[in-house]
């Protein structure tokens, strides 16, 4: 089992890494900075739980940074993101300020949603981040609708919808994929296959080996599996899918092989993982380390990267300080924004 999973990521991916030449140095530094930022922000979120400053639940993307960074970096301003409760990284990757994200996790008034949504519902329409959805699969048809609007209005933005391996077994996935294909919508479906649902390995409850790619043909789509720990591959795969969608070529379904370092949520110690699995992924397949080494090998100086690391840490600390100083939300907002008039009046 462990072996198999371990072997999986590279063996099963059917896309080739890009020759470094293809991606500009600036872009690659951007991908490094982004992954580092997602890593450190999530790490900080984790530390804040331990200090009991984050209430409720929270789902980290530690280990999955290359997917979020690669897909986001390939987006144009105005492109739309739909993701799940495991959405901190996808939210930050669209440029949402770190203090707003951490503030929301902490239920503070400075939070992105002023504490009304919480960690599972991070949304920033101004950044094209159309929401984090906590009902598995529900956002897949919703993302189709956003893409339909672009198609109908002749607008050039594309919609990217992220979900996990376990999501491929729920009805909304099936309905959404079929719908997107028959209407040829400009939407890109990204399955982050991190090998587990909450606690159960995806392989134990799925009729095919590849939960997303193994379903592609059911929608007339090409099966695409990539190494989700390699930001270059993620970026180039994303770019190609976006170009196709933007030019009227319809949807793409991409399965990214990745891994989450922490448990499903704060409640989960992740005891169910075979011995050595976590070490293997952290040791051999860590996206940040892989990318850092690749840049050094490509001639980027250690000092350049160290400067980025330091800059990121500074911003994480700043954000943390802002959140710790922020008050809880005021009572008045309890009943605001139920309806478009700003209030909650259901009667006269």
């Amino acid at each position, binding site marked *: 089992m462990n072996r198999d999973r371990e072997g999986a990521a590279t063996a099963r991916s059917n896309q080739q890494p890009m020759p470094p030449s293809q991606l500009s140095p600036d872009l690659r530094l951007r991908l490094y900075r982004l992954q580092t930022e997602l890593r450190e922000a999530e790490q900080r979120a984790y530390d804040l739980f331990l200090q009991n400053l984050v209430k409720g639940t929270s789902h980290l993307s530690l280990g999955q940074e290359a997917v979020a960074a690669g897909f986001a970096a390939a987006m144009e301003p105005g492109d739309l993101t739909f993701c799940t409760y495991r959405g901190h990284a996808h939210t930050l990757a669209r440029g949402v300020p770190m203090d707003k994200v951490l503030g929301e996790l902490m239920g503070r008034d400075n939070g992105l949603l002023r504490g009304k949504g919480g960690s599972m519902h991070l949304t920033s329409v101004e950044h094209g981040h159309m929401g984090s959805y906590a009902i598995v699969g529900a956002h897949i048809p919703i993302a189709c*609708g956003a893409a339909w609007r672009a198609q109908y209005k002749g607008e050039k933005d594309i919609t990217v919808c992220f979900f996990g391996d376990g999501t491929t077994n729920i009805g909304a996935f099936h309905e959404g994929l079929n719908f997107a294909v028959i209407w040829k919508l400009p939407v890109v479906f990204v399955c982050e296959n991190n090998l587990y649902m909450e606690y159960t390995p995806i392989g134990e409850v799925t009729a095919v080996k590849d939960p997303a790619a193994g379903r592609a043909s059911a929608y007339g789509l090409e099966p695409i599996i990539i190494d989700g720990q390699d930001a270059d591959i993620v970026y180039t795969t994303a770019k190609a899918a976006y170009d196709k969608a933007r030019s009227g070529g319809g949807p793409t379904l991409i399965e990214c092989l990745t891994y989450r370092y922490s448990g499903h949520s704060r409640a989960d110690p992740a005891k169910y993982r075979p011995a050595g699995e976590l070490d293997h992924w952290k040791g051999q397949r860590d996206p940040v380390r892989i990318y850092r080494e690749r840049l050094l090998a490509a001639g980027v100086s250690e000092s350049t990267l160290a400067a980025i690391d330091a800059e990121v840490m500074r911003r994480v600390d700043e954000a943390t300080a802002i959140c710790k100083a922020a008050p809880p939300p005021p009572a008045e907002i309890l009943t605001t924004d139920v309806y478009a008039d700003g209030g909650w009046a259901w009667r006269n």
Partner: protein
Amino acid sequence: MAELTYREAVARGIAQEMQRDPDVVFLGEDIAKAGGVFKATVGLLEQFGPLRVRDTPISEQAILGAAMGAAMTGLKPIAEIMFSDFIAVCFDYLANQYSKGRYMTNGQVKCPLVVRTANGGGARFGAQHSQSVENWCMMIPGLKVVAPSTPADVIGLFAASVRDPDPVIFLEHKSLYPVKGEVPDGEIVDELGVAKIVRPGSDATILALALMVPRAIAAAEKLKAGHGIDCEVVDVRSLVPLDTQTMLASVARTHRVFTVEENPRLCGWGAELVSIIADEAFYDLDGPPVRITTPHIPLPSSEVLEDLAMPSVDRIAETVRRSLGS
């Protein structure tokens, strides 16, 4: 003025709004080429074309989900769920998505859309195609819920629903589709949240919705003729927003209240209205508030049984009479 069927009013109402606003689009099963299984959307494909009037697969979650995504990003979708019973297979969008997006995002996400659906019994379709699901919608904070009883209201309330910035569940009664009514010419735009006193009276207030409105009126006439009991009949029209003022004022005049609901008994809209009245108009009441409902059973298919199950003119009249003690 023209005489239209409720069914024709649906198509005219949709056309009026699609004409007005190019961002209004319409999707659902068999709504385009076929003009709808109830023939309530005939001609719309021809008038507005295949980009605005689209047939879908049998994928209710995709239909309602896509409507939401489109609404969030700038369109004003009209989604048809063929029978309201099928809301059960896509209920997540009503219960967890449409209704919560704006609140959870501190006002960022908008959801201006209308879900049209054929609601109610009387067609001998059996328990899975005949339900009255007003309360499935009314109980969810963030939704608006409308149910017209006449062709004119179909057009006016539908226009108000499409123009409303919030998600509206628009319940058309399938047994009213063939019913005719006078409809003014030209654009018709009504207002949500306004109940209508359709028969003034002084002895008791009868609150009714959709198909139950004509039955309540008929019962009121019967009570007047047969027993001199003069009932005020209020067409609730919109459950959310709810016009409690009109209802409370009526009860303050009549001192007795009856609700006539088609849905099964427990936790219906009648229970909500009775509870509001019992709390806020307790001292106006001269006797118990009484709910007249379909019993708490699934609807049977056979016509004799279905007719027994749904509140009838006779059952309404008899209940009011007995309870007023005449």
